[in-house]
């Protein structure tokens, strides 16, 4: 995988660079930013995250499981305590809730990992330590022949540094 990486110090220059890159259709664009700026979402126009679906489904699965454990346990070895019914669903709501939160919460996290491809075993090309501190990075995945165009475009928008990677 190869392409061109531009590092910007100013937010607006990066935004404009991206717009032009999109117009020029030079390839897929990935933006690196120290902190989430929704300007990028506006220009990149990505679809909303699907994480919420996992949260919902696994939450429901969790609450079901959370009710099922105590009921099964109680019936598995029926012992009367305090003259109460063997499977008393009312207090089991607590367990249901806790297990829902546990499974729902964890699966949300794992869904997030999955969608954003982490944990990532290798540092892919097209990343620079500066992007975690102060700089915005724009990575265009282009064929070598179009690379020069991309470089020129990024430079025009005032990228501090532009480099070609493979």
């Amino acid at each position, binding site marked *: 995988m190869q392409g061109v990486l531009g590092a910007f110090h100013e937010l607006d220059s990066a935004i404009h660079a991206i717009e032009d890159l999109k117009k020029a259709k030079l390839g897929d664009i990935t933006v690196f930013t120290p902190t989430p700026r929704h300007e990028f979402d506006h220009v990149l126009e990505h679809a909303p995250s699907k994480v919420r679906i996992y949260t919902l489904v696994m939450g429901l699965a969790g609450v079901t499981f959370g009710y099922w454990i105590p009921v099964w346990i109680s019936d598995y070895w029926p012992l009367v305590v305090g003259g109460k019914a063997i499977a008393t669903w009312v207090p089991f709501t607590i367990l249901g809730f806790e297990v829902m939160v546990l499974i729902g919460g964890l699966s949300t996290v794992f869904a997030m990992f999955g969608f954003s491809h982490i944990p990532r*075993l290798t540092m892919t090309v097209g990343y620079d330590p500066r992007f975690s501190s102060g700089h915005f990075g724009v990575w265009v995945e282009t064929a070598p022949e179009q690379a020069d165009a991309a470089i020129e475009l990024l430079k025009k928008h005032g990228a501090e540094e532009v480099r070609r990677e493979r």
Partner: protein
Amino acid sequence: MTKRRKWTAIPGLVVLAVGAVMLSAYSGASSSQNNSPVQPIAFPHPVHVQKLGMNCLYCHNAANKSMDPGLPAVSTCVGCHSMVGPDRPASDLGPARKSAEIQKLWNYADIKVPGAPLGPNAKPIPWVRIHKLPEYVHFPHTRHVNAGVTCQTCHGQVQKMDRVYQYASLNMGWCVSCHVNGYSPKEGQEAAGYEPQQVAPGQAVAPAAAAAASTERKKARYDCANCHY
């Protein structure tokens, strides 16, 4: 970047470890099943039970009367073995020989010559215990024996064991599953290794035999206080 890949294995290992722990806990790996210690005297159950046809209750005489099965007093052994000494003549049990084990018995019982009673310095035989329930478990042998549970159901076919070993796990789950699912005389017979007698069609069956062949499962209470108090 191999270094990076290694650590992805860690969660997997953790999962495996947890699984293993649970499996061992579930399978009762902690119990002393199959433990078969060396006894001070290598008492041959097969000879006494199968060849000589002695009943379990002859020696373990309290099994049907008490919580404890009871253990033969040295005098019980000597009852026969003061005559049946170390010098064994040829018999259907084997050629003439000198039995080291009976000699040991004589040493414990302090007997020098055949026919002598227990000597003055007789001391009990320190048998090594094999089947042991924790003290907080109260197991009434009498109740089980009288309910027709054959000894072998729990102790295995001791009549075939040259050296007795712990047959069952004696785990709580093991006890309970029998109480819950029930026990039929037929299973008992099979466990004991007795052939169910063949009955020709139309031939009357002795009631005892019929009872022994019954497959009706009898269940038992399984609340904790049956055994734990």
